């Protein structure tokens, strides 16, 4: 049967859904897979979703490059230009001020354009303007003409004759021209005190004039060091914001301009590109349907409308990917895997939280609760507090075992009373004759202690399994390396080709993926209310766990050259089986969330209060 396997897909992703079924059915006839028990999970559950159709544990999302988001930004800017009759740079400042809420912007602008333009740092406030005046003016549009003055002045400063900015490419180049103050006195820059006669000077509409070198240093510092996209004029108390064309004029050398200091040019270039990224980030942060990829150095954005509303996070786990892979210099924008380990790591993240890139099948709030519990580790501390004491004679730590209060220190043989810490010799023969002890309180204390112990043991049961899978998944880089070596050896000792030994890699990847699922199922099970649903959940969990451990063992075992064809068959079969078990856990859990089937034993954010708190 194994010879029927065709590894025709050269992208390495040869386990197509259809092949999965074929593989499994073929192998059922073989004696090699004795763990397979179709009755357990039934034929119907085995139905594999056709290619292309979304599975219940997946969400619809799109990944957008920075330039794609810039297009969306441009659309909003154009919209505001046309509605409010302002130019692009003004529209951009207004949108940033209004956190990209177009409707609110238009509303506010129609109500009182002057006050909005002042608040957004487009124009300086005019002390004589009364609100009544501006309100009457807003109707005939004269106010909007007035309002564009701030930006047109800068355009004039740049020497551009373009009247309609929407017809020219955005941020076309403006040749800066010296802006000379009216007085005939020689200009001294109020910041660097430079008074050279050939000093290039620049000002916003407020006419607060400074030398271009100071503007340059200021903009770089604000953009690079403070991540500021709305940079105010340098004058004290002046609230005008530098429009984009002004920033470009300062940071981007005009074509044909003399080459300046290379370090400065490089800083400027970086600042300009960082500024554009800041605008995109601000746009994305203001839009609930969008999230910026959290991987360092990545500038992609993911759009996931179904997870925009926080309330959706009780029914779905929005695991998304920006489409790029790798980190830093090794980053690629392609979806296909280029290698193992970190270099080829997909930019996967949760659209709903920052906990972990993929915490399926549990929803964000449960995962968050669990991690908080593990962090606090309070129950372990409580346990140590209620179960250990220091010997009153030698101070070594003694753990209480069983219910007897007659303690004997292993180290110094000191005999004492657990309850009062006094020497046992004063107590007679039974603990309750402790004369400094209230019997009722003693019973309560012992009850509380055993309750706390039981709750700790319960927690440790889930925690240990959770931690074990986390640990194993962390070691997968090691396993990758070892497996790679085995695959090389295999190509030498057997007739298998490179493409034919890929089953090992596929298996290791599957094990890692399933361990992640398993890990999170333990956090889920910890909070699931006792009952039928929990039992079924834990059955599925157990089946997946057993399958994963079997496959793991197979992968880590030694390879005998004569057994390679059999091993290949076995590993392939088990990989398919494990993949199916994982699908079942993911699908069923996700469906349960959609149906509201899961009930908790503790109060979980976003869910109804539990009816009972039985574990």
């Amino acid at each position, binding site marked *: 049967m194994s010879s029927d396997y065709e590894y025709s897909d050269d992208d390495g992703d040869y386990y197509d859904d259809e092949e999965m079924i074929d593989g499994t059915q073929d192998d059922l006839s073989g004696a090699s897979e004795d763990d397979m028990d179709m009755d357990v999970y039934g034929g119907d559950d085995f139905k594999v979703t056709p290619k292309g159709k979304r599975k219940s544990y997946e969400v619809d999302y799109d990944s957008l490059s920075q330039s794609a988001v810039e297009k969306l930004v441009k659309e909003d800017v154009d919209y505001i230009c046309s509605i409010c009759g302002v130019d692009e740079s003004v529209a951009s400042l207004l949108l940033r001020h209004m956190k990209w809420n177009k409707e609110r912007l238009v509303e506010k602008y129609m109500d009182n354009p002057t006050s909005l333009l002042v608040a957004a740092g487009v124009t300086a406030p005019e002390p004589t303007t009364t609100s009544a005046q501006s309100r009457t003016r807003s109707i005939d549009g004269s106010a909007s003409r007035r309002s564009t003055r701030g930006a047109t002045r800068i355009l004039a400063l740049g020497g551009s004759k373009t009247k309609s900015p929407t017809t020219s490419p955005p941020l076309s180049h403006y040749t800066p021209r010296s802006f000379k103050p009216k007085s005939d006195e020689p200009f001294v820059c109020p910041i660097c*005190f430079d008074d050279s006669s050939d000093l290039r000077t620049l000002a916003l509409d407020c006419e607060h004039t*400074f030398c271009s070198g*100071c503007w340059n*240093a200021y903009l770089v510092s604000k953009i690079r060091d403070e991540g500021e996209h709305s940079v105010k004029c*340098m004058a004290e108390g002046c609230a005008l914001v530098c429009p984009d064309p002004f920033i470009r004029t300062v940071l981007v050398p005009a074509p044909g301009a003399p080459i300046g200091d290379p370090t400065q040019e490089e800083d400027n270039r970086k600042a300009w590109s960082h500024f554009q990224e800041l605008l995109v980030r601000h746009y994305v942060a203001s839009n609930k349907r969008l999230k910026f990829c959290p991987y360092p150095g990545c500038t992609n954005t993911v759009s996931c409308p179904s997870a925009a509303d926080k309330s959706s996070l009780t029914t779905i786990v929005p695991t998304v990917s920006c489409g790029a892979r790798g980190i830093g210099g090794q980053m690629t924008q392609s979806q296909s895997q280029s290698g193992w380990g970190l270099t080829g790591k997909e930019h996967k993240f949760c659209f709903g939280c920052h906990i972990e890139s993929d915490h399926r099948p549990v929803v964000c709030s449960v995962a968050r609760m669990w991690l908080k519990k593990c962090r606090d580790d309070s129950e372990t501390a409580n346990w140590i507090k209620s179960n250990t004491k220091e010997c009153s004679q030698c101070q070594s730590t003694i753990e209480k075992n069983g219910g007897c209060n007659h303690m004997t220190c292993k180290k110094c043989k000191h005999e004492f009373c657990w309850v009062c810490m006094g020497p046992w010799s004063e107590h007679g023969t039974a603990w309750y004759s402790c004369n400094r002890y209230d019997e009722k309180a003693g019973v309560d204390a012992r009850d509380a202690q055993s309750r706390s112990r039981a709750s700790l043991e319960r927690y440790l049961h889930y925690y240990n399994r959770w931690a074990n899978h986390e640990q194993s998944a962390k070691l997968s880089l090691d396993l990758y390396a070892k497996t790679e070596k085995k695959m090389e050896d295999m190509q030498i000792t057997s007739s298998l080709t490179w493409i034919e030994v890929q089953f090992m890699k596929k298996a290791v990847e599957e094990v890692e993926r399933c361990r992640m699922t398993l890990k999170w199922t333990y956090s889920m099970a910890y909070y699931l209310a006792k009952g039928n649903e929990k039992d079924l959940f834990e059955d599925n969990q157990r089946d997946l766990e057993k399958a994963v451990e079997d496959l793991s063992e197979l992968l880590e075992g030694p390879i005998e050259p004569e057994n390679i064809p059999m091993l290949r068959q076995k590993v392939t079969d088990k990989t398919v089986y494990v993949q199916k078990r994982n699908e079942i856990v993911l699908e069923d859990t996700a469906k349960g969330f959609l149906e509201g089937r899961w009930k908790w034993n503790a109060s979980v954010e976003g869910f109804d209060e539990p009816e009972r708190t039985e574990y």
Partner: protein
Amino acid sequence: MDARLRRVNKEITDCKNDKSSNIRIELVGDSPFHLKGSFPGPQETPYEGGNFDVDIVIPDSYPFQPVKMKFITKVYHPNISSASGAICLDILKDAWSPVLTLKSTMISLQSLLCSPEPNDPQDAEVAKHYMTSKASFEETARYWTEIYAGGPGSKAGKGVSIGVRDEVAIAGLDPQHVTRFESLGFPRGQVIDVLRRLNYRGANVPKITDDRIVEELLKA
């Protein structure tokens, strides 16, 4: 020459040449980027007669990022940490403008001493004191000026000149209150600590029961 260095040198020279203002700036070591500024406490304030020293550090991106200043002299003021000298002032943060200078910033510090802003405090305990009883606050601030900033009282010899510092006055408390709780057998330092923390002053005194204070004293 480096633009930052040129600007700082010019600022130092300007300050030296300006005899009309009483702001002084001097080098701490060899670097022009670590300075010590000083100015007299403004008239008709509890700081009058004192001399206040300020530690000045010029960051690399000065003047595009704000200068770092903190008081070296201990000051009793709602916007200045009584422990570290850290200053809460908008122009030292986001309201900074590159046109501001060391001198103009020091003048702002001087006027901060004239007009405390207790609603945006740096030192919450001092701010509470200020809001509860302005007269008592001013008395304490004056005492701090005397003992830490060489204020007039130190020369007039009001009993503090010989270096004996009155811990009760430093904490801005009523000596009678301190004595009362001390007589219950609590250590003096502990009583001062608790009463200061509870802001046991002016209109607050009737609001705080003795039981509450004893409770706090027992906790300490």
